[in-house]
């Protein structure tokens, strides 16, 4: 038993190791993708590309498989790119191979083996390609095509104006025409770029512009213009593309907008073209008596803003009105909202909303309608309203006149109302004027106050000390209205007499003058 196990292990182990080594040598991370021009043009040499993502090592050799009818050129490297983003490194290697198909038909290219520098290999997945004649219209410098898709519509039906510009040289292209007058834009113009193959096998640059639009009125419309392209495009010293401008005429694109058929047109048809969907739902399908509930109708489709608000025909016992701001239009859908009240408990079947629309495919009018909605109103509790204040006779609210419009309303003011002072202006005016009066009174009071009289006794003493006769006379005269003792009065009189004698008689001031002045030195 043990011997049989040992022999089995010794037999299986080398096979297992060989398998692991083999697998590891073929698939070690990364992938390789073969891209072939589609279609291949018989007789033309076109470039195929092998893109190797995250190879464990650079490709050393490409082993091209033999395919009947296909001729491979010599592979050549088209660059190795390595990037590090957020610390994650990735690399890409591109390899170009010329390929030529011998005849029209479908070819299956089996896996291409890539031999890497580290002795491992990678392989591409098998690819099937078609070989067919190239577009023989792609000749000269360029080709411009314009068309409407579809070429016959009805008013409101979405269509598209398509402008396709093919140039032999890759270059920036601006559209040379625009949607015709009378068309209604349904969105932004889109621009796509691609390539196409000419009959001679050359690859052309193709830019396609697409304007989604519709038409409001029946008639025949066309779009035409001149398309500017550049020939002999080359890069200048600074990498800018330069070329010789050339004008290509654009063959007019025509579209016919037919009248909407009269036959079978519903009365409520609002111009909706294309399928629409409708959905009606209640906020709650069970409410208590006295409670309100919201009803929401959603209509979805193209040009849904044409939809009219449907009439709300409620069953007896149910009242409702459109909610303020409840009509909401959003891209692709429109919402109508109502508020409902029940006047009695019961089960109410709400009306079905329906919208008619024109089906461009069948050229007939069709109708979409909501599913039935049922509202159950429970009896509710009978609790009286807690009322405070003056009671009114009867249980119902006072009748208030309905809003009136028209002539009873005054005309707008249009900004012509007389100016009025602001709310705080009176207070500001009172405070400001009071402040002014206070300041004025203070200033006048301060300015009118008499200056303080100098001390007469000290002034006289100083005058006597200085010996100035006039000063002594003036200082002594200041005591004229003073209340003095008799001795002080006598001293002043003597001093005045002495000063007069000195001023007018030329006599000298007596020596006692200082003593006389000292008698009134304390008189202020």
């Amino acid at each position: 038993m043990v011997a049989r196990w040992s022999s089995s292990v010794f037999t299986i182990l080398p096979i297992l190791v060989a398998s692991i080594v083999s697998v590891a040598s073929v698939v070690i991370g990364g992938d390789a993708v073969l891209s072939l021009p589609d279609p291949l043009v018989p007789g033309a040499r076109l470039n195929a590309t092998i893109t190797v993502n995250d190879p464990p090592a650079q490709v050393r050799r490409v082993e091209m498989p033999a395919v009947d009818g296909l001729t491979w050129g010599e592979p050549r490297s088209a660059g190795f790119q390595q990037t590090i983003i957020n610390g994650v490194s990735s690399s890409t290697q591109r390899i170009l191979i010329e390929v030529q198909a011998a005849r029209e038909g479908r070819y299956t290219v089996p896996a291409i083996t890539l031999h890497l520098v580290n002795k491992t290999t990678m392989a591409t997945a098998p690819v099937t390609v078609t070989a067919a004649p190239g577009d023989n219209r792609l000749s000269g410098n360029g080709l411009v095509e314009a068309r409407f898709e579809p070429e016959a519509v009805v008013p409101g039906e979405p269509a598209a104006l398509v402008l396709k510009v093919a140039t032999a040289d890759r270059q920036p292209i601006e559209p040379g025409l625009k949607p015709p007058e009378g068309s209604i834009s349904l969105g932004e113009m889109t621009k796509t770029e691609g390539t196409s193959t000419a009959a001679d096998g050359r690859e052309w640059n193709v830019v396609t512009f697409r304007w989604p639009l519709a038409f409001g009125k029946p008639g025949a419309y066309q779009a035409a213009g001149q398309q500017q392209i550049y020939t002999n495009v080359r890069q200048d010293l600074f990498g800018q593309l330069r070329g010789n401008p050339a004008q290509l005429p654009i063959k007019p694109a025509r579209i016919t907008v037919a009248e909407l058929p009269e036959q079978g047109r519903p009365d409520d048809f609002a111009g909706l073209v294309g399928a629409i969907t409708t959905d009606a739902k209640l906020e709650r399908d069970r409410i208590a008596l006295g409670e309100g509930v919201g009803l929401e109708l959603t209509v979805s489709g193209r040009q849904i803003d044409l939809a009219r608000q449907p009439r709300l025909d409620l069953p007896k016992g149910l009242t409702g009105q459109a909610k303020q701001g409840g009509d909401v239009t959003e891209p692709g859908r429109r919402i109508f909202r109502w508020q409902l009240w029940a006047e009695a408990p019961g089960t109410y079947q709400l009306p079905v909303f329906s919208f008619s629309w024109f089906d461009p495919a069948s050229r007939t009018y069709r109708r979409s309608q909501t599913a039935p909605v049922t509202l159950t109103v429970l009896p509710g509790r009978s609790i009286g309203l807690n009322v405070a204040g003056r009671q009114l006779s009867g249980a119902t609210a006072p009748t208030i006149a309905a809003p009136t419009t028209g002539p009873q309303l005054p005309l707008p003011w249009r900004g012509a109302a007389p100016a009025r002072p602001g709310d705080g202006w009176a207070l500001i005016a009172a405070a400001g004027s009071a402040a002014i009066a206070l300041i004025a009174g203070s200033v006048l009071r301060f300015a009118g106050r008499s200056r303080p009289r100098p001390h007469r006794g000290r002034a006289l003493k100083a005058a006597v000390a200085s010996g100035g006769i006039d000063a002594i006379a003036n200082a002594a005269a200041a005591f004229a209205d003073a209340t003095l003792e008799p001795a002080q009065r006598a001293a002043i009189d003597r001093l005045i007499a002495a000063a007069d004698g000195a001023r007018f008689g030329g006599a000298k001031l007596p020596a006692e003058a200082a003593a006389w002045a000292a008698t009134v030195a304390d008189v202020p």
Partner: protein
Amino acid sequence: MIFRLALLLVVMACGHGAETADSYAAWAQGRPQEAIAALGAVARTTNRWDAWMDLGLAHANAGDAGQAAVAFIVAHRTAAERPEPLAALRTVGATPPVTWIERLGPAAWPGVGWPGIGLAIVAGLGLGWAALGTRRRGLTAVIGTIALVGVLPGQIALRLDAAEPWATTLHECRLYDSAGNPGNPLPTATLVRRRGEAWSGRIPVELIDGRRGFVPTGDLGP
């Protein structure tokens, strides 16, 4: 720089005026609902009572009595001495109670508007001079006091009226009791007084006739 700024302001003012004129044009052509957005912007920007009046009139002409009453209430708060907002409120179905200015009658006249400003200046000058003036202080005190007595009633009434917590129902709704049970219906543009902060999605209100209850927040404005 200052010239460019002034020019820009002039251009903006002209544009603003043109926009308002366009809104009135749409209104005059029978599309008042198209005027509402522009008039609302003007009213909110300027806060002039006549702008709020025009907004309310546009709402009323468009058939929205609830929003019209809201605009008229704001116009009344902005210029409580003007009778036009009250008259317009009555036109759309609201029944405003007698205001303080209406109660005072002619006695309120000296205290509101430009006469009130003039009297306030006289009162301030008279009383200020009486406090610190140098002569005829008694006479100016008497004049100032008379002016103050003349201006006070109107000013007080003006402030009381402007502070009235009026609100209106935006559309038909119901008066709820404190337990959340629905009561009698309230027609659109029913004038109420707010009695406090919103509670459980409803605002306590008092109707002009004295009834009290609660109205859902979304049914009341402003």
